[in-house]
């Protein structure tokens, strides 16, 4: 005879008997004898296909039959067989969306989001949270593109889009949410059209304006999470600060040339952007993508990582990038991960907060924008048309092109002397101080730097900056020249 011990949870199937005596030479025979005597136990131990339910374990003596011979484990008279349930549980996953807020899915949605529902980590529960979620995307450029496309496709209920800019043809190399015929349209309008095409079930709110200290709290307040896809320090600090004050996560992405960075700044759970970068670099030191360029797929990679982080925050679970900065070098194709600590002295999320509201904080000054403007003021500019007129009038003018060699390969400026910025100071004797000198670059920013550099180096001649760069020459003077 074999002694079979029944746990309390299964006794309703055995007429409350806790211990049974059954015959059988193997575990299979004993379980079969149990099922013969108490047919309901079969339902409790096996599923419809006769496979043992995962929570029921069978022990012979103190050994799990998984470690013996399974159901074919042989038994001898006097052995004890125990049915043992495994017990698990726990608190819910941390999610931005409470279970109460989760929205029911329609049959159409169940079909559309089927591949999410098949993931046990997301499932119906997670998808209902996505439907209830409101995500604000700041900037509809390179990073904003995959964010908007994927978050719309996966069924985020409400997307907010904020951008003041219009689509330019130089955006199309990477901002694939905008098409050729969208050039000249507001980016938020173009993006909204694309989103509706991808998933008409998504509600889209557009803000065709710049995010400012005055409107940031009012806008961000309405959202559960913010994805920072902006391209400038002022907006990054503004988004971070508003998120810290409102207790929301800031899913951050940035890129330049071949390098991308992404992290989740969430002061409730870890460091904020100011813990990582207490102050921005001096204005003008780090060039933007418009000056330095960016490889077309990079925003696709970084922006989709941001979208992935947004989804996890909403659904709950997984490991978020809170406290970690992912850095990608797309040219060498290497990812690095940096640990970021919370700064106890952080002015907005530390112990002694000095920033408690946005409107009193001068973001322009903090980011050196004002200072730069003041410094720039004394540099004299000349327009493309005026420069053309003076050349045509036969005036003697030295033109210095400070662009990089690979930029000059795109378009050369007629009769220009080529001196890289780094060599200007020591090569200043190549310039004649008695003749006016005009510096040119792509956008008229590096040429200002060139003028200031030479001035500091003691050059006394009259210097001009070609206003808005070589592109205006192409626009206003020589229409056969390409713009870039």
């Amino acid at each position, binding site marked *: 005879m074999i002694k079979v*011990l029944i*746990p*309390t*949870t299964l*006794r*309703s199937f055995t007429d409350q008997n*806790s211990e049974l005596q059954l015959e059988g030479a193997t575990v299979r025979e004993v379980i079969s004898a149990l099922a013969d005597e108490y047919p309901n136990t079969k339902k409790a131990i096996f599923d419809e296909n006769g496979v043992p339910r995962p*929570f029921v*374990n069978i*022990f012979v003596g*103190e050994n*799990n039959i998984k470690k013996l011979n399974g159901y074919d484990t042989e038994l001898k008279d006097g052995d004890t067989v*125990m049915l*043992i*349930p*495994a*017990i*698990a*549980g*726990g*608190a*819910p*996953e*941390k999610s931005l969306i409470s*279970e109460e807020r989760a929205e029911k899915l329609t049959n159409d949605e169940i079909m559309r989001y089927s591949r999410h529902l098949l993931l046990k980590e997301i499932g119906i*529960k997670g998808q209902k949270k996505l439907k209830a979620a409101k995500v604000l995307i700041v900037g509809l450029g390179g990073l904003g593109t995959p964010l908007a496309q994927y978050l719309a496709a996966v069924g985020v209920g409400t997307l907010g889009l904020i951008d003041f800019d219009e689509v330019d043809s130089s955006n199309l190399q990477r901002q694939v949410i905008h098409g050729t015929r969208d050039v000249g349209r507001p980016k938020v309008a173009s993006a909204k059209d694309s989103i509706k095409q991808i998933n008409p079930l998504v509600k889209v709110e557009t803000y065709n304006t710049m995010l400012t200290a005055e409107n940031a709290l009012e806008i961000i307040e309405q959202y559960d999470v913010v994805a920072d896809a902006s391209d400038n320090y002022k907006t990054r600090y503004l988004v971070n600060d508003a998120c810290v004050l409102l207790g929301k996560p800031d899913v951050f992405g940035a890129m330049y040339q071949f390098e991308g960075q992404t992290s989740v700044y969430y002061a409730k759970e870890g460091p904020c952007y100011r813990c990582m970068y207490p102050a921005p670099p001096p204005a003008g030191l780090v060039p933007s993508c418009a000056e330095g360029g960016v490889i077309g797929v990079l925003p696709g990679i970084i922006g989709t990582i941001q979208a992935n982080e947004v989804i996890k925050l909403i659904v709950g679970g997984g*490991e978020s990038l809170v406290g970690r900065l992912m850095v990608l070098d797309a040219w060498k194709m290497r990812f690095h991960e940096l640990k970021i600590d919370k700064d106890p002295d952080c002015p907005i999320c530390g112990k002694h907060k000095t920033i408690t509201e946005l409107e009193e904080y001068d973001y322009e000054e903090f980011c050196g924008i004002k200072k730069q403007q003041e410094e720039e003021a004394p540099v004299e500019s000349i327009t493309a048309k005026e420069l053309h007129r003076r050349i045509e009038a036969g005036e003697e003018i030295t033109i210095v092109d400070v662009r990089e060699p690979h930029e000059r390969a795109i378009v050369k400026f007629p009769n220009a002397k080529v001196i890289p910025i780094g060599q200007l100071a020591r090569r200043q004797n190549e310039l004649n101080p008695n003749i006016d000198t005009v510096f040119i670059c792509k956008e008229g920013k590096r040429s200002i730097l060139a003028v200031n550099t030479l001035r500091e180096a003691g050059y006394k001649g009259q210097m001009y900056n070609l206003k808005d760069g070589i592109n205006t020459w192409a626009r206003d003077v020589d229409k056969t020249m390409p713009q870039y």
Partner: protein
Amino acid sequence: MIVIEKSLLEKIEAEAEKSYPFECCGIIFGSIEKNEKLAHSIKSIVNNFGSGEEHHRFLITAEDMMRGELYARQNGLDIIGFYHSHPDHPAIPSDYDRDHALPVYSYLITSVKTGRADITASYVLSDNKFTAEEISAE
């Protein structure tokens, strides 16, 4: 209803605080008479969930349960339920709790708010739903 001595309840709450920010878990031994459970003793189980999710998951392995069953029978008791803590979450069963729960057993949940035990509540699974069970602390 589950009848449990106050000192036993305090033991559970102390353990929930000690384990914070992780979840604690354990087995409750006692006897069942019709719908009333009488708690006799508890046995704390090392949370075996692992994989870095111990802050919101607990697992009592089949081996722990087997030893629990043997202990119960040697002492003329039954396993009547389990306790676990919800660090920084209310003492309400999660969907995960429900998905992994079994009938008859009492599931005691102690909420721990920033390190201090807050509320302990008990639930029983019936028709695949959790219903609150009265705790009578003596």
